[in-house]
């Protein structure tokens, strides 16, 4: 087949569109001070931010799996009034400005918040401005990615395998754990990877709800932003680290999101 000719206007605009993404990425790679990259990466505050980011993002992903998979199952399998509304509400953080999410969390779980006040007076637990707060902020923003991906996986799987399992004597839980979950493993992995990547990059909700305390709530994106003022070279290196992680996630999901090309 003869390749289709590209009209000039479309070609120019498409090239500008592509360059808009590529130039900044090239800029980041070119301006990174490679000579002392290792020194920047091993600086105590960088290591601390890196460690906290990993802890918080993996914790957020774990919570999202624990709560999000059952939620996706309910959305995919149970019909109940208000399901669409509920799904819309739990999907909202995907489009909500993260800073608004942070404020909402503060109003719910803050010291004088709906639930936070009770937690504080009854158990003496305060969540804002703690690592737990950072984890909650990341979960809030990232879990919808997992729920939507897993729900789509559940809807597209062949449910007759579940019926076959039931005729073999498997109760609902056995069917879920030994048949359903393994069969949707690709969706589960993709959902978890997206969720983790989103959690790792979370900025707005975290800084609003959890603040910016080094070693407690200062994750990589927060550190990058602040280092830009004091130590721009270090912030470039950290940015490059986050870029590499994103590329890694994208590559690992390429079959799912980018097709075989």
């Amino acid at each position: 087949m003869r390749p289709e000719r590209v009209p000039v206007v479309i070609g120019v605009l498409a090239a500008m569109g592509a360059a808009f993404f590529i130039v900044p990425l090239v800029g980041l790679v070119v301006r990174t001070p490679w000579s002392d990259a290792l020194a920047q990466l091993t600086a105590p505050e960088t290591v601390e931010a890196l460690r906290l980011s990993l802890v918080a993002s993996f914790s957020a992903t774990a919570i999202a799996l624990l709560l999000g998979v059952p939620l996706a199952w309910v959305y995919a399998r149970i019909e109940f009034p208000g399901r669409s509304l509920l799904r819309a509400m739990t999907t909202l953080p995907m489009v909500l400005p993260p800073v608004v999410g942070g404020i909402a969390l503060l109003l719910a779980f803050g010291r004088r918040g709906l639930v936070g006040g009770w937690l504080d007076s009854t158990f003496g637990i305060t969540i804002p401005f703690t690592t737990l707060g950072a984890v909650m902020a990341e979960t809030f923003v990232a879990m919808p990615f997992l729920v939507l991906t897993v729900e789509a996986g559940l809807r597209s799987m062949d449910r007759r395998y579940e019926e076959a399992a039931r005729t073999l004597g498997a109760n609902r839980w056995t069917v879920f754990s030994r048949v359903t979950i393994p069969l949707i493993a690709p969706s589960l992995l993709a959902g978890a990877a997206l969720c983790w990547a989103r959690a790792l990059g979370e900025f707005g909700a975290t800084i609003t709800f959890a603040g910016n305390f080094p070693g407690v709530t200062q994750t990589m994106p927060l550190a990058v932003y602040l280092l830009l003022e004091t130590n721009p070279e270090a912030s470039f290196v950290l940015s490059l680290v986050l870029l590499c992680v994103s590329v890694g996630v994208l590559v690992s999901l390429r079959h799912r999101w980018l097709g075989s090309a």
Partner: protein
Amino acid sequence: MTLEATVALSLGGLDLDVDLSIPDGEVVALLGPNGAGKTTLLKAVAGLVPLGRGHVRLDGVVLEDAVSERYAPTERRPIGVVFQDYLLFPHMTVRDNVAFGLTSRGKGSREARATAMDWLERVGVAAHAQSRPAQLSGGEKQRVALARALATNPRLLLLDEPLAALDVTARTEVRRDLKRHLSSFRGTRLIITHDPLEAVALADRLVVMERGRIVQSGTPAEIAEHPRSSYVADLVGVNLFRGEADHGSVKVAGGQALAAAGAATGDVFAVIHPRAVALHRHMPEGSPRNVWAGRADAIELIGDRARVRVLGRLPLVAEVTPAALTDLKLVEGSEVWISFKATDVSIYPA
């Protein structure tokens, strides 16, 4: 071991209302065209779709009863199902597929694996115990599916189109083995199929289902002799008409009459075997009471015979030799006369 199922339900466009009982020692095949509701009936018996009305009893034990709202969930029914395209769990090895039912029913994994290996040996696929289902041929998958269904020692074995997914070469051998396993299984057996050859090969009794209803049931010979629907007549390959008998003739729909020696009175079926229908180039003179002109609509060669569909006063299929076709210079679209004797029309009450 008996199954008594009265199943009435509506699902999508299907309105199912059947009464099926399978006595001890009988292999029953449920035969019907696609969309007749066969698989839905199987699912209802297995408890996978709820009954609207009716009940399912196995060996006198009520598994489900719409009136008393008694319902034994699928996982507690003593059934084994071989599904269409087998539904082997793709993420488990062949052995774990067979062991799945045993561990699900509370057996320890060591014991379950040992039993699974026994079953795989019995059906002849033990060499593939560690393979994934995707690595097996169609015939091997069928055997694993059978082993998986039998391993839990069910009292009712349901098979949904057990050979449909196989290519022709594998089918004969797998069918022979399946028949052997079916006869050694001591429980109630129900096979679903749309293939009459498969039904006749595997079952003692056929139950024919169309549009959610049972239209006929009996041994293959009984059904071949007395078809009661155009679907069955097509399967058997005979001409079937339904009409009102009136002392030597049958008035069928459209007002046309057939001369039929055995016709007395009442609503009857009339069967004319295609072999009994003769074809002529010119109007025949002679004893046959049924003679009319028509047009050859379709000619089909099957082995050493030709089946000619003739459109005329009534549509009929005639079976002649290819040599006769040549003599008659018969091609599709030719004008042709048909004749058959009133004594070749078999009559039985509708």
